[in-house]
C-alpha cells in the first residue's frame, strides 16, 4: 500500500491557527465555559463597580442589590474632590514607569546570563537568586528602612524605583530565564556562527523572541507598582508625593468609611490597569513568532 505523498497528507490536515491548538470542545461549549468562568471570576469587580454607584447607606443591604437604583453617578466627581486624583496618578505613573523599565532591562540581562552564558559560579549564584524568593519580606523590612533613611531617600521616589534597576526582582529574572530556556540553542549557534557575540545574541535574538514573556514581566511590574500600598506608605510621608493606592486611605476616617466613594476611587484607580491589560494581552499572541525563524 503506497502512502500518499507527504505534501498531500499535510494539506489534508486542518490548519492549526495561532498559538493554540484546535478547540478541545465545540466552539459553543467553549464560549459557555468561558462566559460562566468569566462571570464567576469577575464577581468581586462587579460588586466593586456596583457599590461605587450606590447611594451612601445602601451599600450593605441584604439580600445584595447588584443593580443600584438610583444610579449614583455623583460618587465619581465626589471622589475626585476628596482626593487630588490627577496629581496622585502622575506620581503613580512616574514610579511605575521608572520601576518597570528598570525591571525589564536588568532582569532580562541577568536572565540571559543565567540561561545562556557559561561563567564560573553560575549555579551557585542562581541558587542565591532563587533563595531570595524564599525570604519572607518581613525579614528585610526594618533593615531596608534604616538603610534608605541613612541615604536620605525618604520622601523621594528612589526607594520605590532604584531597586528595580538592580536586577528587577528575582521573580522576573526567574520567569525570563525559564522562558529563555525554551528557545532552542540552534538559533544562538547560527547567530554565533555569523560572528555575533553575547550582546548581539541577547539584544537582537533572544529579546525579540521573548516578547510574550517580556510583556508578562511588564504587566506584573506595572500592577505591582500601581497597587503597592506598603512601600509607598513606609517611604512617602508628604502628601504631594502620594500614590493612588495611598489616596484610598483618605476615605477611611477614625469613625467611618465612605465605602461608596472609596469604591468609586478604586474603580478609577484600576481602570487604567484593566485597559492596559486588555491592550497588552494581544502581545502574547506574538509568541507565534517563535515559529518560522531559522528554518523551524
Amino acid at each position, binding site marked *: 500500500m503506497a502512502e500518499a505523498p507527504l505534501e498531500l497528507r499535510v494539506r489534508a490536515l486542518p490548519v492549526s491557527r*495561532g*498559538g493554540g491548538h484546535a478547540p*478541545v470542545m465545540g466552539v459553543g461549549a467553549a464560549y459557555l465555559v468561558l462566559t460562566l468562568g468569566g462571570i464567576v*471570576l469577575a464577581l468581586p469587580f462587579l460588586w466593586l463597580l456596583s457599590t461605587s454607584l450606590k447611594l451612601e447607606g445602601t451599600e450593605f443591604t441584604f439580600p445584595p442589590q447588584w443593580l443600584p437604583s438610583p444610579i449614583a453617578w455623583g460618587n465619581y466627581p465626589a471622589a475626585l474632590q476628596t482626593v487630588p486624583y490627577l496629581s496622585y496618578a502622575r506620581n503613580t505613573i512616574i514610579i511605575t514607569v521608572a520601576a518597570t523599565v528598570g525591571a525589564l532591562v536588568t532582569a532580562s*540581562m541577568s536572565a540571559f546570563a543565567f540561561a545562556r552564558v557559561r561563567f564560573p559560579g553560575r549555579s551557585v549564584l542562581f541558587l542565591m537568586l532563587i533563595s531570595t524568593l524564599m525570604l519572607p519580606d518581613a*525579614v528585610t523590612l526594618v533593615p531596608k528602612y534604616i538603610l534608605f533613611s541613612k541615604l536620605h531617600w525618604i520622601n523621594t521616589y528612589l526607594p520605590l524605583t532604584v531597586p528595580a534597576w538592580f536586577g528587577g526582582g528575582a521573580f522576573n529574572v526567574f520567569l525570563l530565564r525559564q522562558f529563555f530556556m525554551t528557545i532552542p540553542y540552534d538559533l544562538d549557534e547560527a547567530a554565533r556562527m555569523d560572528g555575533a557575540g553575547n550582546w548581539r545574541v541577547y539584544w537582537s535574538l533572544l529579546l525579540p523572541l521573548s516578547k510574550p514573556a517580556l510583556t508578562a514581566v511588564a504587566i506584573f511590574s506595572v500592577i505591582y507598582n500601581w497597587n503597592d500600598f506598603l512601600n509607598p506608605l513606609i517611604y512617602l510621608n508628604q502628601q504631594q508625593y502620594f500614590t493612588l493606592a495611598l489616596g484610598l486611605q483618605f476615605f477611611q476616617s477614625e469613625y467611618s468609611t465612605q465605602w461608596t466613594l472609596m469604591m468609586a476611587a478604586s474603580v478609577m484607580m484600576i481602570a487604567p490597569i484593566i485597559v492596559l491589560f486588555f491592550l497588552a494581552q494581544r502581545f502574547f499572541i506574538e509568541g507565534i513568532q517563535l515559529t518560522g525563524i531559522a528554518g523551524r
Partner: protein
Amino acid sequence: MTEEVAEATLVAARRRRRWSATRWRDARDGYIFILPWLLGFFIWTAGPMVASISIAFTDWRIVTAPHFVGFANFVALFQDPRIRTSLFNTTVYVVLGVPTHIFFALLAALLLNLKLRGIGIYRTLFYLPYITPLVANSLLWLWIFNTNFGLANWLLTLFHLPAVYWLQDPRIVKESLVIMSWWTIGGQMVILLAGLQGVPRHLYDAASIDGATRWSRFWNVTFPMLTPSLFFNLTLALIGAFQVFVQSYVITNGGPEDSSLFYVLYLYRVAFQNFDMGYASAMAWLLFLVVLVITLVQFRFANRWVFYEAELKR
C-alpha cells in the same frame, strides 16, 4: 612526519587557546550581565539578611537597646505551641491550595489560549480579581461567606444542603480561605498563557501528521513544553503559600481559636504588635529554612519532569 605532528600540536594549541578565549569572554560577559542584580543582591538582600540574623540573637524590642541572648530565641521557637499550630495551619493551606491553584490556572490558560473571537475580553475578565484592590476583595468574601445572607450558603440551599459556617467553624475556615484564593489565579494564568503561546507550532503540525489525538497532543506536546512554566508556578506558589498572610489578617484575624493563624500572621503579631524583633527574626529564619529545604527538594526532582528544549541541544 615530525612536521605533521608539529602542525597537529599547533592546531590543538590554537584550538585550546581559542576555546579558553571564548570561555574567558563568556565569564566576563556573564558577570557584566548579572552585575546589576549582583549589586542589588548585596545592597538590598544580603545586607538586610545579615542585619536580620544578628537581630535574631538579641532581645531587641525597638525601644530598648538590644542584648545578645545567644540561641534563646531559637530554643523558645520549639517550646512555643503557637509555632506548631501556625506551622500546621500553613501546611494545610499549602497542601490544599497549591495543587488546586495550579490546576485551575492551567485550565483557565488552556481555555484562554483558544483562538476565539473576543478572547481578549475573556482574558481580561479572568484577570480582573487579581487586580481588584484587596479591601474590596476581602469585603466581598466576608459577604459571600456570611452564614445567613451569603452567596455560598444560598447556593447550598439550592441543592437542599445544610448551611455551612464558612468562617466560624475551625474545621472549615482554612478550606474557605483556599476557595477564596482560587479567584487570584490571574498571575499564574498569565505565565502559563505566555508559555502556551511559546509552544512552536511545528510540533503540533508534526503531531498532527502522526495522527495524534487531541489528548495525546496535549500530553506529548503541550505539557512537556509547558513544564518550565509549571515548574516556575509551582516554586512560586509554594513559596507564596507558605507566606500567606493578608486573607487571614483582613478576614478572620487568625480565628476562630487560632484555626487560621498562619505562620506569617503570627510573625507579624510578634514583630509589630509585641515589638519582639529578636523572636520575630528567629521566626522569619525558621520559615526561611523550611521553605528553602522544600524548594531544594523540588529543584532536585525537577529534571525528572521539567523539559527544556535547550537541553537536547547540548
